């Protein structure tokens, strides 16, 4: 899952970025409206956490540009403005949710996960495939009820493939979904993650979940 945090407070965005990355999200950050417009032009994000009062281009203008581009990115507005008219304006422009500062980090994560479920048309926080179950709220993988100890990146890769069952992802496409724009890692790291993930799933009793299609990438059939 790839997130964009648009927030001019460096301290707040650093804390949010750090926390979401720890959960396995790929997180990019934009400190002002112009930077945000550049990011949404060049990357596909599953969700954008957007502050409204930004230097230069305002958050509402960023939202308007995003919706004009027809991008399916979900938008959660995070703002110090608590008036009804501010919420109405943002929601009418295409925001999917609105949270007033200061907020509870747990609530922000819960709303983020809810928006991501809606993004992929899911009604519950559970992805199941045979004996494998993914609890997207707890970010936990289990096989026949027994937890599989996955790293955040392994979990994120497995969740991506399960969410898009049947669709093949190239190494680069998976890398872009798993890593933020400032990452120094090579896209070859995806091969390593797939390898370790297969090993862990195999030791849990699932041997043929992730297929490699030459020239197309990886998929879960």
């Amino acid at each position: 899952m790839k997130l964009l945090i648009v927030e001019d407070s460096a301290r707040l965005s650093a804390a949010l970025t750090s926390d979401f990355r720890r959960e396995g999200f790929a997180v990019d950050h934009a400190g002002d409206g112009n930077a945000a417009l550049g990011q949404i032009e060049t990357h596909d994000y599953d969700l954008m956490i957007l502050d409204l009062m930004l230097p230069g281009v305002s958050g509402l203008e960023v939202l308007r540009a995003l919706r004009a581009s027809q991008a399916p990115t979900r938008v959660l507005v995070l703002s110090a403005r608590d008036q009804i008219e501010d919420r109405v304006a943002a929601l009418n422009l295409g925001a999917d949710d609105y949270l007033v500062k200061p907020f509870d980090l747990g609530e922000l994560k819960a709303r983020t996960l809810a928006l991501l479920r809606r993004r992929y048309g899911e009604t519950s926080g559970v992805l199941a495939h045979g004996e494998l179950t993914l609890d997207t709220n707890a970010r936990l993988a289990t096989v026949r009820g027994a937890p599989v100890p996955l790293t955040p990146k392994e979990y994120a890769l497995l969740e991506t493939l399960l969410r898009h069952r049947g669709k093949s992802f190239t190494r680069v496409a998976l890398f872009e979904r798993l890593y933020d724009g400032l990452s120094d890692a090579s896209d070859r790291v995806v091969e390593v993650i797939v390898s370790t993930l297969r090993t862990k799933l195999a030791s849990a009793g699932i041997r043929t979940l992730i297929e490699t299609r030459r020239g197309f990438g990886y998929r879960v059939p």
Partner: protein
Amino acid sequence: MFREWAGRSLQRRLLVSLLLGVGLSLAVFQVVVDRLVDRYIERSFTQAADLAQRDQLMREVDLILLGGVVTVLGVCALATVLSVRRGLQSLDRVARAAQEISIDQPARTLPLSGVPTEIQPLGERFNQLIERLTEALEHERRFSADLAHELRTPLTEIRTLGEAGSARQDVAGLQEFLRQTAAAAVGMQSVIESLLAVARADRVAAQQALEPMSVAAAVRARIERLRITAPEDCARIVSRVSEGQWIQADPRLFDAMLLNLLANAIQHGDPGAAIEIDWLQEGSGGNGALQVRNAAPQLAREDLPHLTDRFWRGMPVKHTADAPGVGLGLWVVGSLCRVLGLTLALDLDELRRLTVRLAGFRAL
């Protein structure tokens, strides 16, 4: 009982006074006319037969006079009631308007058109008090709203840093979170102090302690204090204020304005360019101006009118743990200038250098 009934209403008191006056006058008039008629009749009727006729005539005259008095009194009473009621209509309107003024929202004054001239000063004074009260309430409401709004961001930073930091296992990461939390708390303190400075500006202006002060020494002292928290930024500050420049000012307020000007230049200016402080003589009147100039490459001329707006977020802000101020600098300076009677001028030249000039200091 009667006095109480008549004394509570201006209209009733006027009516009673008028009736007493007219009644007394008519009574005196009746007595005088009665006497005159008596003398005339006594001279005209001397025979015994005439005496009975005279008494009859005198009774008729008394009845006519009494009827006249009663009629005049009735007409006067009616005229008085109508006249007084008409005259007091405007006061009734004022009284109703006064009753409709809410204690919490006194944003309504009394309608004084048509009010008797004797009452006019009272009404005007009342309206002035209402306007002052409205201003004070609006000021209080605005301050509360500003405080709540401006505190949300640092409060969110502190809360999120705390929540996110508590999940950290590594000591180095935890220490960084703690450092950032402390910096956010400092930012919150700056917000509160800035808002309080403006909220108290009127009182401060009234209580300012004017004294001779050296501009160069004040600038030097401020830079030294700033050096403790932002040493790298202070290295860029160049003061060209001459040592012999003295002014009559409140050193505390002068320092508050200079701090905000410098914090603004550090936060929004080009981090690689100098921040220049100058003192300018203004004509021959003995006044002087403090000027701070810094490179502001991201600023446009159309931004200038917004620089003293509190909510304006036109430029990226340098947010580091050590950066002084919280972006309210020019708003605070503008507010202090307003109450101190100084002039704040902003200019952006073709090299994108922002010049902020505080004019109107009394030079010695």
